[in-house]
């Protein structure tokens, strides 16, 4: 854990994970980026849209027998709604993400070499199409693997279930990259027949692949939950 002072308000800003490079000050909502020795403010984060999520920064739980704690969040919006991407600091020091969308939960970790060369080539279609930014919506038929098609990722047959342009609606806590409002990505969701979850995120001509599983609420055995009125 490393501590800094907010360049804006002077309050203490902690980075629990050495993998975090960005944090939002709890007090003044300054967006702070961590460099080698110091921190820099890159602006102020507006408050996040309301939701009924039972999760919050500080919530602790388990995934595949290992503990995690939530240290950050991105609120992601798309044409038909919004969801939460919770940044997890795992017990083993690794990072992971908990996607909370429409009342379902999926935990995934970033993987380096996800696909075969053929799959990579196909994914290139998405990158190119997203980069061109000619159309506002995303024409999936012109680009990479289309909705409903299967691709191999880490020797697992996964089906493309969603391709959508997303925009960051806000962030809080600490994150492994700067996530200001308006950060745009192309997000492709895939799922496997045994509950595998995969998300390919395309941004700035690069892609990041996250692979994991859908999880049930009870499986996570969460603690330190947010208070929900009426529940």
């Amino acid at each position, binding site marked *: 854990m490393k501590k800094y002072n907010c360049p*804006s*308000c*002077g*309050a*203490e800003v902690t980075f629990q994970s050495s993998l975090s490079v960005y944090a939002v000050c*709890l*007090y*003044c*909502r*300054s967006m702070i980026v961590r460099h080698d020795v110091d921190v820099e403010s890159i*602006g*102020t*984060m*507006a408050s996040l*849209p*309301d*939701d*009924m*999520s*039972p999760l*919050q*920064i500080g919530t602790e739980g388990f995934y595949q027998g290992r503990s995690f704690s939530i240290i950050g969040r991105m609120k992601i919006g798309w*044409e*038909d*709604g*919004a969801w*939460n991407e919770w940044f997890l600091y795992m017990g083993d020091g690794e990072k992971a993400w908990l996607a909370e969308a*429409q*009342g*379902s939960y*999926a935990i995934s970790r970033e993987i380096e070499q996800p696909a075969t060369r053929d799959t990579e080539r196909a994914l290139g279609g998405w990158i190119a199409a997203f980069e061109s930014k000619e159309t506002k919506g995303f024409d999936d038929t012109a680009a990479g693997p289309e*909705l*409903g098609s299967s691709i191999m990722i880490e020797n697992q047959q*996964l*089906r493309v*279930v969603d391709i959508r342009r997303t925009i960051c609606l806000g962030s809080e806590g600490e994150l492994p990259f700067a996530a200001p409002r308006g950060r745009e990505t192309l997000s492709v969701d895939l*799922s*496997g*027949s*045994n*509950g*595998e*979850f995969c998300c390919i995120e395309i941004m700035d001509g690069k892609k990041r692949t996250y692979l994991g599983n*859908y999880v049930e*609420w009870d499986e996570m055995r969460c603690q330190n939950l*947010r*208070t*929900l*009125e*009426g*529940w």
Partner: protein
Amino acid sequence: MDESMHDKQPPSVTAASPPPEKPKGKPKTLKCPACAGTITVKAVGITINAVCSSCSSVIDITNENYQIIEKANQNTRKTLLDIGCRGRLSGVEWEVIGYIEKTDASGKYNWDEYLLYNPYYGFRFLVQDSGHWNFVKVLRQDVPGAGISSEILFEGQKFARFLTGEAIVSYVKGEFYWRVKKGERTFVADYIAPPRMLSFEKNDQEISVSLGEYIENDVVVDAFAVKGKMPYKTGVAPNQPAPDQAWFGKLWRVAATAFAIVLAVQFTTCAIADNTEVYHEQIEVSPQQKDQTITTASFNIPKAGNVLIQSSSPIQNDWVELDMSLVNDRTNEQYELKQAIEYYQGHDGGEDWTEGSTSANTYISRVPAGSYRLLMDMDAGALMRNSPVFLSLTIMRDVPAWSNFWLATVSIFIYPLYTLLKRWRFEKTRWSESDFPPAIYRILEQEEEDAS
């Protein structure tokens, strides 16, 4: 706004002071842009379309602009489960936050879908169709073959295709995490493995597969404290478990075990039976003896038990009738019996045929030990024609009998067979509503139709 917040720095923040309180999650209220009534949203942050409870207009709440998607000016319809009511199912408390009425392509057939919400467990659907209820969860995992194959293997269980068709949204109220639209059409394919059902739904934007589980009406009534009258249950629902589903297999296992025991008893009885001959005689009866009683020599039956009287005669196209009486020499106790030997054969239309047999067997059960004679009066075709009759008579004792065995077998299987028939009728009713009935139900139905 962002900038003003930036400027307004907290005056004296120290590392020790607690961070600002995080707002707790709570329902959100907004003003209906159509009628200015209040709309309360429960699944805040997830709901994107809400129907105003005052004017029934559909409002897009994806962002703060609150656009009217469909303007209306009418009261919301009353439904069996009202928006806002709560109930416990599968150990989780659910709140009804949405209601959709759907119809098939013909518009004549409709059903109810209630959207249930719990902030921890997400969403479920409670579906009412012809008085039958299903508790449904949308699946996140990929289900290969859904909507295409005639059979799906899911979680090690085979699901058979039952129906394909269209579902059209005919009425909505409450709030939804997707865009709802009256008149929207969805292609639907249902697969069953009672009490479970896999439903595949596809429209222009989305493909989804959900898993439903049949639940009894009482469960719904108890869970949601339903006051109104439950819709009348008609027919057999696609994934309704057969009434005897729980013990059907058990019943057959019990029957099979009972049969195995009966079989073992029978074989043991056969193995330990004495099965010995107590009397044998070849008798020639002349036409002169026609009206006389023929009496055998005395023979001894050493132990009580059954007695088998076997008579045979090498006749052809002829008959022999015997009135017999087994008489105890000491007590004069009699066992009367009749035997008939008939045997015919011939050649007809290029085929040989035979009818009857040249021998007859009769069992007498529980004959006490003692000395006996057999008395018989014979009548025969040959005697009428003034020809002699040759009769071979054999008397056996303690012969293994099969009649009890068959009686026991029938008693064992009569009820299981009855339940099998009932089960078959139930399954036939179920599949009569299907587009893809298995051959066994389809063929018989065809015959019935042809007959009527």
